[in-house]
């Protein structure tokens, strides 16, 4: 894990706090991960675990009450946290692009798609005729039919799946090397979800981008990600390549997430029922001294209450933050995951 040539983004010990009504919320408590060039890296976890906050912290698109208290974020050789707002603007859009969850709210309702794509081409020396050619080419690549006509339309005139394609087109127009996709399929219905996943996998090859995918859907992770980090209460609790994580989860929370997936009746055996994780997330203003998952964990012992476990490398590239990960040895998760 160093800033080698094949690493595009390296986040180290990132800590972030929100202050609200005099309370301090520890939203991120030392996040470390790196994304390799050309890979899709996934962040999974439930609402409020900090996965979206991490993605916004990378480009410093945070609310006024958020404060990064520690850590580094290296994009190639540049520490993004040391950049001025002005220099960071050169990274935003052009080096690192974002896709938001709901294109209906993330695209400006009163500007045409043309205008919003052209904004991305603002620093190029292209004439508006040439910009239009570029825009049409990108829209073709993301599968928007009749781009010449649709370019002049507004987002509300697009159908559900086309909306997400339009946002992907706008983001790609900036020609980013890293794409942060924050729940890109959550607002979509299942058939369109499928199309967008295929599109993003295709875009990765076609445009040569790396993807940071934020999702709460393990199915999406299985179909898109090379490696995954599982987040809980502002900590990464487990990190591995997708196959390893799905076949041999070594953190009780990861295991719990997989057990909590509903299964089709024909898939169910006697011992395999949907098991929800009892309890709720601990309050971020009052995190336990030990493991954040302690109150919901079936394996917990007194050590867990007193001491925060460190990230331990269980096998090469497979990390887990649990004192008793070995108790999960032999446990299988969702083995038959299919990739891409």
């Amino acid at each position: 894990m160093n800033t080698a040539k094949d690493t595009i983004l390296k986040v180290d010990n990132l800590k972030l706090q929100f202050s609200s009504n005099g309370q301090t919320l520890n939203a991120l408590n030392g996040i470390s991960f790196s994304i390799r060039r050309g890979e899709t890296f996934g962040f999974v976890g439930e609402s409020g675990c900090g996965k979206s906050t991490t993605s916004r912290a990378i480009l410093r698109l945070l609310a006024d009450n958020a404060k990064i208290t520690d850590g580094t974020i290296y994009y190639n050789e540049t520490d993004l946290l040391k950049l001025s707002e002005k220099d960071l603007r050169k990274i935003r859009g052009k080096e690192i692009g974002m896709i938001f969850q709901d294109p209906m709210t993330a695209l400006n309702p009163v500007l045409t798609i043309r205008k919003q794509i052209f904004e991305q081409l603002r620093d190029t020396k292209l004439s508006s005729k040439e910009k239009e050619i570029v825009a049409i080419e990108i829209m073709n690549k993301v599968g928007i039919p009749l781009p010449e006509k649709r370019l002049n339309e507004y987002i509300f005139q697009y159908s559900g799946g086309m909306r997400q394609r339009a946002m992907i087109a706008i983001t790609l127009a900036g020609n980013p090397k890293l794409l942060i996709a924050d729940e890109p399929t959550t607002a979509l219905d299942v058939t369109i979800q499928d199309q967008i996943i295929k599109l993003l996998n295709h875009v990765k090859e076609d445009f040569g981008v790396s993807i940071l995918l934020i999702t709460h859907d393990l199915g999406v992770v299985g179909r898109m990600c090379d490696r995954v980090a599982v987040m809980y209460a502002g900590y990464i609790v487990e990190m591995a390549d997708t196959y390893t994580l799905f076949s041999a989860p070594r953190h009780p929370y990861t295991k719990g997430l997989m057990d909590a997936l509903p299964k089709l009746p024909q898939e169910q055996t006697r011992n395999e029922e949907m098991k929800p994780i009892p309890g709720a997330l601990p309050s971020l203003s009052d995190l336990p001294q030990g493991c954040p998952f302690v109150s919901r964990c079936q394996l917990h012992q007194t050590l867990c209450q007193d001491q925060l476990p460190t990230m331990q490398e269980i096998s090469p590239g497979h990390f887990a933050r649990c004192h008793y990960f070995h108790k999960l040895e032999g446990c299988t998760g969702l083995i038959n995951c299919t990739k891409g």
Partner: protein
Amino acid sequence: MDLLSYILKRVLQIIPVFIIATILIFFLMRLIPGDPALVMLGEKATPESLALLRSKMGLDQSYFTQFYLFFKNLICFDLGTSIKYKEPVLLLLGDKLMTTVWLIISSLFFSLLFSIIPGYYSGIHKDKPVDYIFRLLSLLSLATPAFWIGLVLLTLFSVQVNWFPVSGWGNTFEEHILGLILPGITQGIGVAAVLIRNLRNNVIDVKDSDYVNYARSKGLSNFQIGIHHILRNALIPTTTLLSMRIATMLSGSIVVETVFGLPGIGALLVNGIYARDYPVVQGVVLLFVLLVMVINLATDIIYSFLDPRVKLS
């Protein structure tokens, strides 16, 4: 074509409204105590001469006959002859309308000048000192009557330092412009107070929206985000409010034109009421009705351009 048929439909809708307004204005006018013949001839007039003048002006006929004659003439664009000025009302209106229209344009200019930047910064820096200052200023100007602001401005800039004319708007274009600045500021301050508060709230709603965050993730500058993403959206509801304020400006022009001695239709209306000059008052009020309806139509059309989600129908 779509736009054209929409305008045609709206113009046709104006007609019944206009007729109802005509009826109301005509009869309400007759409810005001006072006798135009008496005003014209003075307190010492003999009953015979009063009766003669009344029958000459048609005032001895029943109200319904009077209305019938009034309405018949109205259709032929004849609003009658002013009792006071002895001139056709239509000519009087045509003469004075431009002054009022220019006054409103000047007021619009100053209300936008005084509201867009403070409203935007107030919203962006919500609950910061700059926000408190602008909110206090807008509250103050909201609580201050226009005629008082007008008199203070006159005392300061026309009487003390002599930058602007004390009364009237001269004869040349330059004099017109100079004569419209203080009246425009007077009306603009009051309207800006309302616009600032509205725009501030809209900016607060818009500035943390997803599309502003997305625009930020594209690396746009604060200026580009401010103009194309925040203001562009925040100004849409403000436009509606502004158009309603233009209607209020029409009645506000009555006060402002009186204070600044501008020869507009507001001043014409005031003099007409003093003189019980029925044709003039009817003419002015009908013109106001027509203007308000035309402004409403224009607003709806502008709105559909500002917000493509709104369809004209």
